[in-house]
């Protein structure tokens, strides 16, 4: 008995430090939300009460606070969002799907009413406090809100019985670097918020299946046809949930992480594809960066015609597929690409939480880079069709090449020329910047950069200069010359072999004088390698700093020049034209004729179709 008691005591003593360690917050918890919300499926309304505690973690007193009311973007066609995206406005109008957030009461908890102090400008709410909030002081706001749930909006709303609630509650903006980061919701913008704790209770019809950020704490039947679910999330910076009576549920696990897939009944045959993709991503990140720090990840397969697909939220992502895709084009990794991309955001947004409004490349670009690495390591080509293969990085390059130089990557989301330029820069070009960097530095060094960046900035809000500083620190070199050009600049990368010549020496038989002229056609300067090949199998490798616009290399050999290629391993994925990277002495008629023959047959077929009308 004594032995047993001693053993028990020892066990408890051992547990204490463990429990203390577990209790240690992963982030500086600036906000604490306690929200109870009721879903009215008949009126398509959400009725909510929120108590938000906000810690002034800055060194400045704050005379006012800012909150986001994102759903006001869908209130009418006057909103900033709809002005910039009239297509969404037309859809909302057609479906009568306008949605909004109405603030019913706003006060300091157990304190004065602040309704008169509110200034609401569409999706941004400003409240002037009776007294400035002092540094390290916490304020508790009690807010009652009513939301009309939009239909046919973007990322949130309902379709049939499917409800998706993202950015649905009055949400504190971030105070950073002496200013409030409270921006209007814009079609290209995503989100930015402080880490904290969420306790959310939602009441809804009893037959609904719910997926959510955080972990379930309690579920109770209210005996009136409704149930109330309580979710608790720690060290997350957003809280998203979804409800649908028709969701199928599939579960799996990767080490300590539970995987929950909420899928559409018609996509039951794609459950394993989704689960495999999440597990592949979890495993890759586990070894590449760090184990996933949350106990659960929920993957939501959005409904047909829905608008919530392909998005990331803490501990919850939305995928995207269709019933027909694997039947019509089985070679397309559609659910895998979306699922892996969105899961990547759990690290690059969910944990390393940059400001998506102003520096979207830090999450979208790094996530696209991660996606390329995981997809290619797990599946190989992202598209296999008709004897052709397309790798994920080639698809990114295609997106980048459509508008390669209209905006720099480092541009505020709402200041991009258009959506194509935004996605071409922050997703595609940024991923290619990192792939090129990896090729220039070596994979091992790049892995150390990514791990260091993660370790240093997890559960914080890093900026572009922080990432560059990590690169400089890990490599021990100042790489600003690279980032200045490719992140902050709009210059093109384009190296070419301008000309080749190889002539037999008039004085010495069998000796050839060969010349290779390399040219930098773009503005961006990156040191490059040049591979020169001769007809006796001999090869010469040259290095060129690329600073001048061109350089000529001369050889005197007992062999005739065959070809020359700048960047022969195609390390520089930002190069806008790989075709002009090389030049041969001989005309490559076979390749030309092969493609021309394909086109000839294509034209013949088009003409045959036309002739059938005659």
């Amino acid at each position, binding site marked *: 008995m004594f032995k047993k008691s001693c053993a028990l005591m020892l066990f408890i003593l051992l547990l204490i430090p463990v429990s203390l360690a577990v209790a240690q917050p992963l982030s500086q918890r600036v906000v604490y939300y306690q929200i109870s919300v009721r879903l009215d499926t008949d009126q398509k309304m959400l009725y909510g009460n929120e108590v938000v505690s906000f810690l002034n973690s800055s060194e400045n007193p704050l005379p006012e606070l800012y909150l986001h009311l994102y759903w006001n973007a869908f209130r009418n066609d006057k909103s900033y969002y709809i002005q910039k995206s009239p297509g969404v406005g037309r859809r909302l109008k057609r479906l009568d799907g306008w949605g909004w957030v109405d603030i019913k009461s706003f006060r300091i908890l157990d304190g004065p009413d602040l309704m008169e102090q509110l200034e609401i400008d569409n999706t941004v709410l400003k409240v002037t406090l009776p007294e400035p909030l002092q540094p390290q002081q916490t304020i508790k706001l009690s807010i009652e809100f009513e939301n009309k749930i939009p239909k046919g909006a973007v990322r949130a709303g309902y379709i*049939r019985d499917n409800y998706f609630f993202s950015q649905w509650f009055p949400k504190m903006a971030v105070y950073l670097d002496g200013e409030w980061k409270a921006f209007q919701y814009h079609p290209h913008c995503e989100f930015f918020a402080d880490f904290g704790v969420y306790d959310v209770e939602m009441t809804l019809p009893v037959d609904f299946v719910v997926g959510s950020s955080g972990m379930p704490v309690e579920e109770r039947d209210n005996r009136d046809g409704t149930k109330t679910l309580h979710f608790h999330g720690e060290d997350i910076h957003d809280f998203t949930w979804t409800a649908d009576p*028709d969701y199928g549920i599939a579960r799996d696990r990767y080490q300590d992480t539970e995987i929950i897939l909420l899928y*559409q009944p*018609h996509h039951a045959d794609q459950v394993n594809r989704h689960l495999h993709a999440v597990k592949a991503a979890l495993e890759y990140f586990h070894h590449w960066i760090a184990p996933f720090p949350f106990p659960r990840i929920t993957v939501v397969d959005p*409904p*047909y*015609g829905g608008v919530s697909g392909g998005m990331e939220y803490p501990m919850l992502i939305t995928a995207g597929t*269709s*019933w*027909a895709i694997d039947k019509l084009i089985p070679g397309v990794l559609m659910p895998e690409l979306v699922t892996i991309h969105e899961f990547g955001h759990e690290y690059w947004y969910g944990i390393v939480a940059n400001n998506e409004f102003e520096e979207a490349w830090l999450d979208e670009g790094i996530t696209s880079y991660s996606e390329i690495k995981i997809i290619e390591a797990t599946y190989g080509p992202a598209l296999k069709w008709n*004897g*052709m*293969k*397309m*790798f994920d990085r*080639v698809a990114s*390059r*295609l997106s980048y*090449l*459509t508008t390669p130089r209209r905006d720099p990557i480092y541009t505020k989301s709402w200041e991009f020329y258009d959506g194509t330029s935004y996605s071409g820069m922050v997703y595609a070009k940024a991923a290619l910047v990192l792939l090129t960097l990896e090729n220039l530095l070596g994979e091992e060094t790049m892995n150390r950069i990514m791990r260091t960046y993660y370790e240093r900035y997890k559960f914080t809000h890093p900026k572009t200069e922080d990432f560059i500083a990590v690169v400089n620190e890990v490599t021990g070199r100042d790489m600003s010359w690279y980032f200045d050009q490719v992140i902050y600049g709009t210059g093109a990368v384009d190296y070419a072999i301008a000309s080749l010549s190889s002539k037999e020496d008039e004085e010495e038989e069998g000796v050839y004088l060969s010349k290779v002229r390399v040219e930098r056609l773009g503005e961006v300067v990156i040191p490059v390698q040049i591979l020169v090949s001769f007809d006796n199998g001999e090869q010469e490798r040259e290095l060129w700093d690329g600073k001048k616009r061109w350089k000529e290399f001369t050889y005197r050999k007992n062999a005739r020049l065959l*070809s020359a*290629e700048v960047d022969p391993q*195609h390390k520089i994925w930002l190069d*806008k*034209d*790989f*075709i*002009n*990277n*090389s*030049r*041969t*002495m*001989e*005309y*490559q*008629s*076979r*390749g*030309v*004729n*092969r*493609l*021309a*023959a394909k*086109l*000839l*047959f294509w*034209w*013949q*077929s088009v*003409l*045959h179709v*036309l*002739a*059938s*009308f*005659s």
Partner: protein
Amino acid sequence: MSMWKSFGKGNCQTRRYWQVLLIIFLFNLVVALLLTFPFWNILGESVGYSLAGKEIASELNMKYLTDFFINEQPSLTASYPMPLLLGVGIIYLLLNTFFAGGAIGLFHREERFTLESFFRESGRWFWRFLRLLLISLVFIAVIFLINSLWKGIAGSALEESAHEPLIFWMKIIRYAGIGFFLLFINMVFDYAKITAVVSDERRMIRTALRSFGFVFSHPGRTMGLYYMVAIVGAILLALYLSVSYWVLPATIIVLTLIWQQLYSVARVWVRLLFFSSQMALYKTIVPAKR
């Protein structure tokens, strides 16, 4: 005469007038070559002296294809302006209408092929066939109008449906419907041309309406024969694709080119087989009624 016999007679006639097949095939080839030439030129300048050209000879590398089409887009757009493409399309359609007159005229008269007889028949029926072509375009426009209306109605009706497979199959049915009606119009106007030639009919609206009447009076045999020839065409397509993907090594360009041209000949043969076998069926049915 049954469908099978019409099919057999049509096949004999198509073989007998192989020169017609050759003329139409060569015309198709020449126009396609003219259209390919600018591309060939741009391609040669772009990848002709590049290692990319060497790699493309053995594998269609998407990386290079992407670069070619994006970087050469200005040259391609300049070489293929839309008015030029439209013009070539219209001229090609008119000349094929002209050749159709020659083919159907010879199939009807069954006289020995000479270039003179072929072009005489082509010229004789051209204006009538042209009017039939314009009338058929009206029907085709109506099909696409109905399609867009159907699309709108079905879209609204199914907007709230969560039944993805149903929505998918509704789309497939719509596409199949368009395909069916396009083929139907194509068949009716084949008979209109045959009627014009056999009856030396000059009033083309009346001829078109008579062709509808003819097809509706003999739906089994006319559609049966049409789909019999269409199935032969589908089998030839399947054979072409199978050999291209499974048998022919992509790297041997000459073999690929020959195979492509053989298939192109087969397509012209199928087109002529439609005319000749439908002519045989028409001649069997119409005299029997007289």
